[in-house]
């Protein structure tokens, strides 16, 4: 168009920064409760945990300083290796499948209208509000090797009833599947929020641009909800690294050494065997693993999204 328009199209000058003392004070007052709670309930225990990891100590009470002995022991501990790989395996089985499935369902649900959408969304979300004990009972009974309603189906494939939670190769995939079923509602919700943030006009523009459904998804929807995807992946990664409840419940009484995750190793060391120092050591290592993985993942994914 003409040059006349460009003259006013200069972006607004950056607002001058100004702080007065009252604002700073107000900000401090608002931030303070969080900082205090965060320091007392997170920073302090974390430091204590790190300190404890250098001790041979019971769960409660004083111990003796032993330097890095716990860490040396940890890297020689066969169980730690098993727990680490089980955790990584579980993360692989859940994080990406849960995210992709949630995205697919969200895209589907988003196409529905009115009460139908609410109903279907509720169906997918209800498992999320169940406590883990209920999830355990429900699936435990469905898969029960004697009376489970899924066993006739399994018998069709396998020829006989299969005690899936007592069959090592099936254990993690089954628990991972149940976890995805259980927690996917929240991810769907996040994706739907992301999808609803995309203006319908964008899709109309795409329709006028002659975009095929597939290209619309890959070139418009997917890039536009990429930030949500990164968020979901990161939340999932952190949550699944901390896997405990389901694996503990389904594995309880069974070959728990073979199915154990890192948090379970912490629990067993600190709470069951009263070895607080060693439990703290595993916890510190898990903490570092999660920090490294999540920061790496977040940075990598964000970098990709920014391209």
């Amino acid at each position, binding site marked *: 168009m003409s040059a006349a328009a460009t003259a006013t199209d200069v972006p607004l000058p950056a607002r001058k920064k100004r702080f007065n003392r009252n604002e700073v004070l107000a900000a401090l007052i608002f931030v303070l409760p969080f900082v205090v709670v965060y320091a007392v309930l997170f920073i302090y225990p974390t430091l204590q945990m790190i300190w404890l990891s250098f001790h041979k100590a019971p*769960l409660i009470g004083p111990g003796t300083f032993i330097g890095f002995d716990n860490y040396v022991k940890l890297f020689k501990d066969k169980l730690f290796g098993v727990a680490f790989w089980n955790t990584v395996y579980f993360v692989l089985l859940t994080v990406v499948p849960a995210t992709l499935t949630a995205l697919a369902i969200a895209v589907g649900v988003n196409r529905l209208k009115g009460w139908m959408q609410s109903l279907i969304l509720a169906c997918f979300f209800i498992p999320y509000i169940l406590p883990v004990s209920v999830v355990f009972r429900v699936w435990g009974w469905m898969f029960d090797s004697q*009376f489970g309603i899924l066993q006739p189906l399994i018998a069709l494939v396998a020829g006989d009833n299969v005690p899936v939670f007592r069959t090592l190769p099936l254990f993690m995939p089954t628990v991972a599947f149940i976890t995805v079923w259980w927690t996917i509602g929240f991810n769907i919700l996040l994706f739907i929020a992301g999808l609803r943030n995309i203006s319908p006009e964008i899709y109309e523009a795409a329709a006028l641009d002659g975009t095929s459904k597939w290209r619309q998804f890959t070139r418009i929807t997917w890039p536009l909800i990429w930030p949500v995807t990164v968020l979901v992946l990161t939340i999932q990664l952190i949550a699944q690294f901390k896997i405990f409840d389901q694996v503990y419940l389904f594995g309880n*009484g069974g070959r*728990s*050494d073979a199915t154990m995750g890192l948090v379970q190793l912490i629990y067993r060391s600190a709470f069951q065997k*009263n070895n607080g120092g060693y439990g703290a050591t595993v916890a510190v290592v898990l903490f570092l693993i999660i920090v490294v993985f999540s920061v790496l993942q977040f940075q990598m994914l964000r970098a990709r999204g920014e391209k």
Partner: protein
Amino acid sequence: MMKSFLKMALLSTALLMPAVAQAQEVVTWWDFLGGGDGVRMKALLEKFNAEHAGKIEIQATTLEWGTPFYTKVQTSAAIGEGPDVMTYHLSRLPLGVSSGALSEITTDELTAAGLSGADFAESNWKAAQVDGKQYAVPFDIHSVVLYYNKDKLAAAGLIGDNGLPTGLDGVDNFKAALQKLKDGGSEYGISIHSAAGDSQWRIFYSLLGQQDGQFLDADGNFLSGDNLDKAVKATSVVADWVKDGLAPAATEYPASIALFTGGKAPLHINGVWEVPTMTDLSAKGELGFEWGAIALPTFFDHPATWADSHAFAIPNRVGNEVSAEKRAAVLQVIAWMNKNSLAWADAGHIPAYSPVRDSEEFKTKQPNATYSILADTAVFDPSSVLAGVASPVYDAAGNYLMPAVNGEIDPQSAMEQMRDDLQGQVE
């Protein structure tokens, strides 16, 4: 404003304090007794409070069974905020004492409350000691028993003239009986909770005891010498049942009971704590057959059955010790519970307190009386910080014994791995 409020608060506190002190001793009580056990304990607690109105009042809280309970006990003991008295598994006592959670109970205190070691079975009383010191008072002996479907057993000719099962002693005999029952149209000969280590441990430990096998010897070695062979033998007995389809593989706890109550398996090994389940089902007419329970048959040299005890223990209260009066009240509670433990037998348990066990009322109480021989033939879990409820030994049972029973690992190799694992955990 603030001042007058404080004054009022102080005043009212001052007025209330003597009233509380004069009224009664409040005894804080923790237990882990849910389900049918819990109902019966609640009745006992109410009875106690009614009888001691104005003198002692028990304020009871029920917590989650197993590791959560013991973790809470330990952490609260460390900061002096635990209960005044609590239920405790005798098998768990060594770990409790080693972590400093338990307070010693002196002979004088026991005598003052009218209790003495002579009132309990010796093995039971000893199981409540660590290094010769008393840390608990047994309340019951609970064990595993053989539940049976009398109709099916009678049809297979396995009921004797005395109306009790017969012909089940000996490994081969028992297996033959199972085969006979299965041939008679039952899905399984016997139902066992084969998906978990704890239930398998109870059977295994009974069979090991019947051979005088020692799981942990006096030198702190697991399955030393020929104990390993005995353990392999014990494991093989159950593994054979599963292998030959006489017992269900990898079956969960509720399913294992349902197989029995549903008539699909005429025999079932489970804890005495399931007696109320059978009694209730039978009373409601939902069982569909006549049931009974006997002590485990003698598979090897002599009768022996794994047993544990619910006991009473007093937690340490570091920096917050209780008064002598309160401690006396606690001992009174313990003594009263034992003397009234006949009601507790309704939960399937055998009272630990011999005068009750020897009473006429108990001797006619069925099926308890039938299997009360357990009290004399009981083998308690090894006394070790690695043993007991929710202990590394239980975990090891899940890791090695359970898969061996289900045919995933050869019994010989399973027992060797179990031995090495536990030995490796000795510090």
